C-alpha cells in the first residue's frame, strides 16, 4: 500500500514554529515531577507476586526446610538446580525429617526465574524472592550454594510445621525421637 504524502503547508514549512513547540514541551517538564530513577542507587519496588531469584528458607525453628526430594531439580527447565542427596548416613540435624540436602546449588546464570521450583516444592522450602539483579565478577560466583541460598532466603513463618506435629504425635504415642522403638507388646 502506498500512503500518499500530504504536501506541507506554508506554516509547517517555516520549521521554527515546530521547534518552538518542542521547546515548550521540554520546558514544561522542568516544572513537573521527575520521572527518571537513579538506578542502581534507587530501585523499583516490585509488585506483589513478582518472581525474582529463588532462595531456600528455614522455618521458625531454624530447620532447613528442604528435604532433598529433588522435584525442583527435575522440573527446572534450564536445569539450573543441582542437589546432592544426603546418602544413607543419618544427620542429627535432620531429626525426624531424616533427609536434608548435602549440597544445593542454583546456577543463577541459568535460572530463568520461572517459579516452577516454588510451585512443585512439597515442603515450601524454596521461594522466588524479589531480587532481580544478581551480579558477580565470575561464573563460579553466580553458582549459589546451600549456605548462600539459605542466608539470602531467611526464615519462612510456616503456619503448619508438619514435621514438628508429626514428632509431637509420635512422642505422645510413645515412639522415640528418631523412631528407634524396639518396644513390642508380647
Amino acid at each position: 500500500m502506498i500512503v500518499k504524502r500530504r504536501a506541507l503547508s506554508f506554516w509547517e514549512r517555516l520549521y521554527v514554529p515546530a521547534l518552538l513547540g518542542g521547546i515548550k514541551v521540554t520546558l514544561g517538564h522542568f516544572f513537573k515531577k521527575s520521572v527518571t530513577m537513579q538506578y542502581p542507587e534507587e530501585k523499583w519496588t516490585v509488585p506483589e507476586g513478582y518472581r525474582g531469584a529463588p532462595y531456600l528458607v528455614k522455618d521458625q525453628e531454624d530447620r532447613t526446610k528442604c528435604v532433598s526430594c529433588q522435584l525442583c531439580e527435575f522440573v527446572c527447565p534450564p536445569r539450573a538446580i543441582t542437589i546432592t542427596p544426603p546418602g544413607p548416613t543419618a544427620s542429627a540435624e535432620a531429626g525426624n525429617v531424616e533427609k536434608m540436602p548435602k549440597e544445593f546449588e542454583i546456577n543463577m546464570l541459568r535460572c530463568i526465574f520461572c517459579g516452577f521450583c516454588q510451585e512443585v516444592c512439597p515442603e515450601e522450602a524454596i521461594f522466588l524472592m524479589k531480587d532481580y539483579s544478581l551480579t558477580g565478577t565470575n561464573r563460579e560466583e553466580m553458582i549459589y550454594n546451600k549456605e548462600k541460598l539459605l542466608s539470602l532466603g531467611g526464615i519462612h513463618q510456616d503456619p503448619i510445621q508438619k514435621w514438628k506435629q508429626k514428632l509431637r504425635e509420635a512422642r505422645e504415642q510413645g515412639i522415640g525421637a528418631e523412631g528407634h522403638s524396639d518396644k513390642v507388646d508380647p
Partner: protein
Amino acid sequence: MPPTATQETETQAPVIDTIAIKVDGREISIPKLSVDPISGRPVPTTMIQACAAAGVEVPHYCYHPKLPVSGNCRMCLVEFGTPAMGPDRKPILNADGTSKIAKSPRPAIACASPVSPGMEIYTTTPGVKEMRTSILEFLLINHPLDCPICDQAGECKLQEYSMEYGQAESRFAETKVHKPKQVDLGPRIMLDDERCILCTRCIRFTRDIAGDDALGILNRGGHNTLSHYPGKPFDNNYTLNTADICPVGALTSKDFRFQMRVWFLKETNSVCTSCATGCNIKIGSREDRIYRYVPRDNDSVNSCWMCDEGRLNYKWIGREDRIQTVSIRKAGGGLESSSWTEALKHVTGLLKQATPGSVAIIASARQTNEELFLLSTLAKKLDALTDVVPRSGQADALLVSADRNPNTTGAALTGFITAKPGSILPKIAESIRSGRIRTLLVIGEDVTRHGLDAALLGKLDTLVVSDILPNATTALAHVLLPGRAHAEKRGTFTNIKGRVQKFMRAVEAPGEARAEWEFLQELTTPITGQAGFAGIEALFNHMAAERPGLKHLTWSDLKDSGATASGSEG
C-alpha cells in the same frame, strides 16, 4: 523346600483343559489350571491371571505372581457373574440362546478366586471403582504421606493408584497411628513401619523363596508391625529382593537409601557378573554414575530375584583409581603414557614377529564371548597357549552358582579354552620359566595371584596387559591398555546353563578406556587377516557362524532375555 529359580519351574504343565470366560466383555480362552509358583503343582487359574491374560490390569498390592497368594490387601476386588442354573442344573438361556449370567451379589478378590467356565469378570464398573477408592482410603489412613523423603516415591504403587483412585483431600480427621521409623532390620535393609501396608509380600518371599522364615507381623489391629525374629538380624543373601517387591516405601535398601531419586535413573538392561548364573539386571545410572542394580524378570534364569552380593557388586566400576591411560614401558624405566594407535601398532608388530608357540594368552572368564572369540582366533594363528583363571565359591539352592566367573561357558564355546579352566596355567608358567614363551597377553586378570609371580613375569620379553583396575600385574606391564567394565560396553555372556545373554552400555568409561572387543579387533586384524567389524552385532553374528556351539544364533535372536546356545544344553 523352596524351588530353585534355576530349575525350570516355568516349564509348561501337561496339556490341560482351557475354559472360555469373558473379561470386561472380551471373550478369552485360558487354561483351567496353572502352575503354583511355590509347589510347582497345578492349581486353579485365578481371576487376576485371567485378567492379565486378557491384558486388563487389576490393581493389587499383596498379590505377586511368584509368591503364594495371601489376599489381604483387598485392592483387587472385582465384580463377576456366572452362568445361571435352572432347577434342572441346566444353564438358563437368554432369548438369543446365550447363557443368562447371574451377577454375584458380592465382589471377589481376583487374586484368590478361581475362574469357572462361562464366568464374566467386570473390572470397570462404577462399583469396582468405588471399591478401589475406598480400599485405598483405608490403606492411607495411617500412612505417613512422607513421599518427599521416601525412596519409593516414583515407583510406589500407593502413589500410582492414588493418581487413579485416590482422593484429593483426606477425610481422616483423627490422629494417625505412629510406628517406629528407621528400624534396622538387618545389614542391608531399613524398615519404616509407618509406611508399611502389611501386604506380607516380604514375609512370604523370605519364607517361601529364600527359605529363611525371618520376618513376621507383631501386635494387633492398627498397631500391626512388621518385624524380624527377635535377636536375629534379617541378613540372608536375598534380603534386598524384599525392598524390590515392597509395593510401598517400607523396606528400603540401605545402600541406595537417599542416594538418588528413582525418576532420574536411566535403566539399562544388563547381566550380573558376580557368578555364572547370569541374573538379568537393570542398571540404574545417572550422569555416568551407577546407583543401583535391580533384577529384571527372566523366568529362564532368575525369575524376579537376585542375590544381595551380586546386587551390591557395582562400586568398583566408579572407583577413582581406574586405569585411564594407555601406556608403554620405555627402555629401562617406568610406564609412559602413549596413544592407542602407537600401543596397538607396537603390540601388533611384536606379535607378527613372534615365532609360533612363543606367545601365551591368559584372559579372564569375565570377558565377553566376542572378546574371547577374538582372542581364540589370535591364539590359533600364533599357536599360543590359552587359559582363563577359575573362580569358585559356595553355591546355594536358589541362584548363586559355584562358578564365580560370568562367562566360563563362553570361554569354552568360543574355543578360547579347550581344557578345564586353570589347567593350562601351570604349563604356561613352566614354559615361561624354560624361556619358550617370550610374550604374554593378560586380559583382565592379576596373574601374580594365580601362580605367575613377578619374578617369573620378569623373564618375559613382553607383557601386554589390559585391565580395568590397577594390580600387581598391571604394575609390571610393558604395554598397558585400559579396558572397560561390562556396564561400559556391549557384549554377551554365556551363563552356566549355556544361555547367551546380551548386555547394554549404561555409563561412559573414564579416560581413554576402550571396549576390549574394539581394540582386540584392531590388534588381531593385521595378524589373522580377518577384517574388523563396525559393530558388536556384526562381530557376534560372525562369531556365531564360526563356532558350532553358537551356530544358530544372531544378535537379534538374543532379544532381552537371551537365547540358549545349541552346543551346551544340559
